[in-house]
């Protein structure tokens, strides 16, 4: 008997917790409110199913609990009911899957006007590279990594010379412009994750992965590493500042290019 009451309380408590507790997602700062909407749809469908199943159980336990002289019904199968439940479930699942795949299609289709930013992860810090005036990033290879060239940029690539290199410092992005994050690692797996942007993707040494988003709010956001990368994993924090276009250009003007950063060595070797 107590169990019937507790089952009801589990449902009521879970629903109240969901609506009343202060723990909810951070305010969104990107275009991916589609993702939030899909989560809301999923919460509603799954919440209704959870409540229905558990409350039905509670009713059964209360109504059909053993009392002297009771006998259970004998009904091995009920084809009609089984098919109905299967079909209703399939409809519910489809109602979650279809919007999910629709949004995923957007997630993997990068807009053609997206600017490119490269993120390089290493134990346990973030660096960034932006294309220079030519709009192209130079090639790179982990084999090129050295103290003078921490990102492994290909020094003989003409496209690389004007690339802006931001080593172990904050990344700035202009608000309202779609950006394609090219993700690279030089040691282990990492994952570039900003909760407010809702998007994340692993970074794999030897490959370049990507995701895209449009920052919609100016402000300072914390970058977290979301893939276990050794004992410094929780301390691998970074900062993304989303700026107004003017602030962004001011910041960009202060940054050094790959050619500038490697210049001292080139001068030295010329002598």
């Amino acid at each position, binding site marked *: 008997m107590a169990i019937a009451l507790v089952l009801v309380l589990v449902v009521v408590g879970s629903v109240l917790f969901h609506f009343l507790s202060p723990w909810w997602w951070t305010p969104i700062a990107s275009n991916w409110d589609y993702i939030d909407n899909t989560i809301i749809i999923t919460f509603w469908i799954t919440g209704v199913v*959870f409540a229905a199943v*558990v409350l039905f159980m509670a009713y059964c336990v209360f109504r*059909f609990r053993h009392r002297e002289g009771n006998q259970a019904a004998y009904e091995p199968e009920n084809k009609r009911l089984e098919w109905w439940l299967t079909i209703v479930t399939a409809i519910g699942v489809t109602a979650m899957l279809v919007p999910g795949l629709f949004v*995923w*299609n957007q997630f993997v289709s990068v807009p053609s006007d997206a600017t490119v930013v490269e993120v390089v992860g290493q134990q346990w810090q973030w660096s960034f590279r932006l294309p220079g005036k030519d709009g192209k990033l130079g090639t790179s290879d982990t084999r090129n990594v050295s103290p003078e060239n921490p990102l492994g940029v290909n020094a003989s690539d003409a496209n690389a010379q004007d690339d802006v290199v931001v080593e172990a410092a904050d990344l700035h992005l202009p608000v309202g412009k779609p950006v394609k994050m090219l993700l690279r690692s030089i040691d282990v797996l990492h994952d570039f994750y900003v909760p407010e942007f809702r998007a994340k993707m692993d970074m794999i040494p030897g490959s370049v992965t990507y995701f895209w988003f449009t920052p919609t709010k100016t402000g300072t956001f914390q970058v977290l590493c979301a893939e276990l990368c050794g004992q410094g994993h929780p301390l691998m924090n970074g900062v993304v500042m989303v700026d107004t276009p003017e602030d962004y250009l001011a910041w960009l003007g202060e940054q050094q290019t790959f050619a500038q950063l490697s210049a001292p060595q080139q001068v030295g070797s010329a002598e």
Partner: protein
Amino acid sequence: MVDITPADAVPPAEVAEMELYHPHSWWTKYVFSQDAKVIAIQYSATATAIGLVALVLSWLMRLQLGFPGTFDFISPEAYYQFITMHGMIMVIYLLTALFLGGFGNYLIPLMVGARDMVFPYVNMLSYWIYLLAVLVLASSFFAPGGPTGAGWTLYPPQAIMTGTPGGQDWGIILMLVSLILFIIGFTMGGLNYVVTVLQARTRGMTLMRLPLTVWGIFTATVMALLAFPALFVACVMMLFDRALGTSFFMPAIVEMGEQLQHGGGSPILFQHLFWFFGHPEVYIVALPAFGIVSDLISTHARKNIFGYRMMVWAIVGIGALSFVVWAHHMYVSGMHPYFGFFFATTTLIIAVPTAIKVYNWVLTLWRGDIHLTVPMLFALAFIVTFVNGGLTGLFLGNVVVDVPLSDTMFVVAHFHMVMGVAPILVIFGAIYHWYPKVTGRMLNEAMGQFHFWVTFLGAYLIFFPMHYIGLMGVPRRYHELTATTVMTESAHDLNAFISIMAFIVGFAQIVFLFNLIWSIRHGREAGGNPWRATTLEWQTPETPPAHGNFGKELPIVYRWAYDYSVPGAKEDFIPQNMPGSFESSREPA
């Protein structure tokens, strides 16, 4: 109204009566035993012992997460070692070993009406190799550098690099060797379970008369035999990468400014191999639980399981589908994004047979005669936690919803609810249910009630709120949550609450262990069939069953396993081996 017609012709025995090995000494009777029931107890005791280690590790993790900075001895290295060993022990060495090696060994021969497993000697070897695997794993706690801290998924490259505890010490090597041994041992046992179910069923025990417990364990074993080889090769290759300097999973890497002598390997290949095993593994744990809980509900609600045939096909269907969903663990791994469409679709399709199982459990309760015994309470609690955890799987399986939630505490909450708490509740229910058969005595009811309420409500209070911490964006596998801005002050309080609940639930398990030992001597005498159940294990001439299980003559099966409350029958159950057929029985065929 009792209407018994003479038994139909009973099909002839397909398999000759097997020659059993008869032990000559105490050693061959209790230690190097070839009796599946003894092996089952050995498996269960070993799994429980190493499981207790994993329980203590979870306490240490919760100490750190709930009260960061308070316990100096939990360094980041130690924390990652704790989570890694906790996860691996719970999934492989406890759940898999207990369901298949423990329940499989005990119940398969008894439930199908066999004298023993068909290869008793290999069955014995299976246990001893499993024990060796556990010892190798446990030895890593004492090895230089300690156990591996790579996370239970052991993703390379970090698993074998210096930035990870045990990566360049003994930890990862011992882990890989232990897994390889486990798989060898499991394969020996697994072949036994499959062949016994297929070849050694007694006369009249058709496949569609098997109790769902056997269907669950059988299907899970077939899956394990197909899935574990993927983990086996992954372990061998990583062992080569670590010990011989090969580059199966290692691309060119610069570690702390130094070029490593690796190149050309693929870290993501490991993930595919791991999850090709890892996802079926979820169902290798879940299917035996599905089967067992079906029988618990049916027996204690005195009602046939609703939709038996649908239940069997759902088990088989889930087993097959679970081999084409593995990459839903890798939506944000950087694999080709178009995989997302395929794997999200297959993953959500698998929700349909799973939902059918849930409906059929609750419909079995409908118009039943529900005895709220301790096994039944655990079965009800299983449904609650499994439905909860299964539904959050629909978040994570739906590729784009997974993007913000992946690698957060939401995932931790989800998989603990669905493949931690839910199957363990079934294990508890099953132990309360079958303990009288194993020992001849009932477990103490009061201790059982206490154990149930604390475990069920406590576990729910641990893992339900944890989803919301993940929803906030708090990543998993963080030794320090204080450095994250998404983690609010109140969320820290919630974390401390979760930790306190974890200690309380852990304490309740000590009461359970005490009950297990205390009741061997002091429990109420159970008799042969205390739950008035239909299946063959309750019809043995002796309790506990002797070597050979069924005395002189093997039982002959005349009906399905679920003839409860058949209209007109004298009792509210008809054992499977009772001759005669009831006109009112409507066994699905």
